[in-house]
């Protein structure tokens, strides 16, 4: 972008404020559309045509939860003569409009972190050359690049309300907004916010008005996906068994207090077993007390039973607002009483201040690499790799971290030995549609080859994984001393998948004797006890009752 200016022999620059001048010119071009900072929704496309230049880097706010949906529609409608070939740098490619931008030619290049519901279409478009891919990131990684080499020229963000000065209230779903605004506003970019309402005084200032250039009032509230709601009614006996194994075989012996949970049904089962099975094991106060976690409805019974000290959240969850407001001892809340979430800070918390990540995945290979990619879908990474990786920069000790480090390197000198974060993959040996969890080779490799990617999209690298839990038992990879032990430990909990059936039975037997593999019976767990009656809540309605009527689930989860 930077061009040498002809004529000056001693200096290549005539100005040190080209960026600022360019921004001011753009602002001037939009002045006629705005009353103060306020722009009518019907003028949103005109506003974008005025301030965006071809080839700009644009952050269209959206992640796995909230979406600046009005602004994405407005951007899609721009005149291609004025706006085209954009470089989108955004957390989530989630709405159909996000990809329509590329179909239309409004955008050309993409750097992103998560694609969820668009995972199949994005794969097709990448393969068809409709999208020029920069890279697929983790959230934290993309945020970091906003400050180094992917700084947005224009950020299109979503907030709950604004005042006339442009002060924004982002409400419980603050999420990525402060990070995006920080990177854009302080580097001569333009920030445009869509808000649900414009009011005289915002309940709290999440984004100061001097960082916001334009405010567009949307005709309906921005969309939020209830991604973290798991209906307890759908939890199976096998998932309960894996949850029992995890609690008794990992939470208890390591004494894991600080942790993050994935969004799958296995971890929902763990949350619902804490007040029942966990209580029976006498673990209350000893494990699972501090979380980097969204407000999972499934955690309500554990919170109400006094298990949880505090939770910091990436975002909020639909229907949880009143419950959170009534439990400020547990959640981070603002002076107005509502949740203050912050994705960047919570990701950092998950990376550095948690001793365990436990979550499910779609495929695990013989080295323990895991991926949620199949040959036809690229779901992106979101935040899981930050949660599910050992932080090499970590320096503070804790019991679980030291213990894991010791298991990995029993002969090392203790004061010089790194600890290890517990990174646990949990799931049933067969997933949806009987697809095996364990594979000889990840589909991610075939995909990388097909799309000519330099890196296969691996969610969690095998050398970060410490434990794998299935209904067959727990494989403790920290205790494996070489690659073949590791492979057999994985095969040993792979059940009747092809990978599992190809195990070396004698070696698996020896690993079991050493405690590398632990079966339910080795842990004193009777699979017949894995019954739904053990769940603290068996339905969404039960969760509502646990919350004292404060949790208001979205309609699609109701059966009353």
């Amino acid at each position, binding site marked *: 972008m930077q061009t040498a200016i002809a004529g000056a022999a001693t200096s290549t620059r005539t100005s040190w404020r080209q960026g600022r001048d360019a921004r001011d010119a753009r602002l001037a071009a939009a002045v006629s559309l705005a009353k103060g900072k306020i722009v009518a929704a019907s003028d949103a496309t005109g506003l974008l045509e005025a301030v965006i230049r071809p080839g700009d880097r644009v952050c269209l706010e959206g992640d796995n939860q909230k979406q600046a949906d009005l602004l994405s529609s407005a951007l899609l409608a721009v005149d291609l003569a004025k706006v085209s070939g954009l470089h989108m740098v955004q957390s989530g490619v989630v709405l159909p409009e996000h990809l329509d931008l590329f179909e239309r030619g409004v955008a050309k290049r993409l750097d992103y972190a998560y694609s969820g519901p668009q995972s199949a279409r994005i794969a097709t478009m990448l393969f068809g050359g409709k999208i020029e891919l920069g890279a697929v990131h983790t959230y934290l990684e993309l945020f970091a690049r906003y400050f180094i080499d992917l700084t947005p020229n224009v950020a299109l963000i979503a907030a709950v309300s604004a005042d006339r000065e442009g002060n924004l209230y982002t409400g419980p779903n603050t999420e990525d907004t402060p990070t995006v605004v920080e990177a854009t506003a302080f580097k001569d970019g333009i920030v445009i916010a869509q808000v649900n309402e414009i009011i005289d005084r915002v309940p709290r200032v999440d984004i100061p008005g001097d960082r916001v250039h334009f405010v567009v009032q949307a005709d309906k509230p921005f969309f939020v996906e209830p991604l973290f709601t798991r209906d307890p009614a759908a939890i199976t*006996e096998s998932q309960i068994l894996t949850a029992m194994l995890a609690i008794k075989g990992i939470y208890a012996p390591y004494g894991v207090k600080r942790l993050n949970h994935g969004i799958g049904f296995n971890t929902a089962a763990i949350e619902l077993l804490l007040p029942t099975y966990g209580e029976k094991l006498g673990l209350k106060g000893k494990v699972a007390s501090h979380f980097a976690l969204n407000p999972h409805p499934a955690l309500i019974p554990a919170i109400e039973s006094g298990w949880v000290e505090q939770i910091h959240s990436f975002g909020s969850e639909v229907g949880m607002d009143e419950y959170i407001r009534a439990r400020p001892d547990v959640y981070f809340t603002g002076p107005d009483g509502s949740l203050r979430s912050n994705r960047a800070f919570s990701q950092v918390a998950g990376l550095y201040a948690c001793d365990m990540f436990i979550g499910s995945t779609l495929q695990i290979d013989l080295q323990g690499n895991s991926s949620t990619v199949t040959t036809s879908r690229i779901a992106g990474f979101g935040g899981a790799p930050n949660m599910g990786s050992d932080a090499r920069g970590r320096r503070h000790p804790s019991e679980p971290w030291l213990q894991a480090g010791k298991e990995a390197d029993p002969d090392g000198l203790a004061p010089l030995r790194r600890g290890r974060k517990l990174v646990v993959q949990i799931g049933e040996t*067969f997933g949806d549609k009987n697809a095996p969890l364990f594979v000889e080779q990840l589909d991610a490799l075939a995909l990388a080859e097909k799309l000519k990617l330099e890196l296969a999209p691996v969610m969690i690298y095998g050398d970060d994984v410490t434990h794998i839990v299935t*209904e067959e038992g727990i494989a403790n990879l920290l205790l494996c001393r070489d690659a073949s032990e590791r492979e057999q430990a994985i095969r040993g909990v792979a*059940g*009747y998948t092809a990978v599992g059936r190809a195990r070396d039975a004698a070696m698996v037997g020896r690993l079991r004797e050493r405690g590398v593999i632990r079966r339910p019976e080795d842990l004193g767990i009777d699979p*017949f006890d894995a019954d739904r009656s053990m769940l603290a809540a068996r339905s969404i309605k039960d969760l509502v009752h646990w919350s004292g009527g404060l949790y208001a689930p979205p309609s699609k989860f109701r059966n009353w």
Partner: protein
Amino acid sequence: MEDLSYRHIARQRAGGTRKIAVIGVVASGNLEVLAERNLPDAECLVEIKTAAEGFGEVWNAVIADFVERHSPGGVRFSINDGGARPDTVSLRLAQAARLMQEDDQ
């Protein structure tokens, strides 16, 4: 639909006196197992009707392990399968074997 049948020699007769037990339902991802004590003590027979074709090898492995672990001699197991996963099959078979070990009422 596919019909499968596996006959095994069991180490010992299934304990208990119960003559018959049924567990599970035929639904997507689930199955029913009917256990009947009507074979010679050393024999075990598992017969399967399944909607998911081509998984004979997996069934073979699941049932061999089941017989090895539970030694349900003298019992014939009949399965109607709605496409259950192997872990669910193992669990239902084990549940059926345990029910047979109860004393008849």
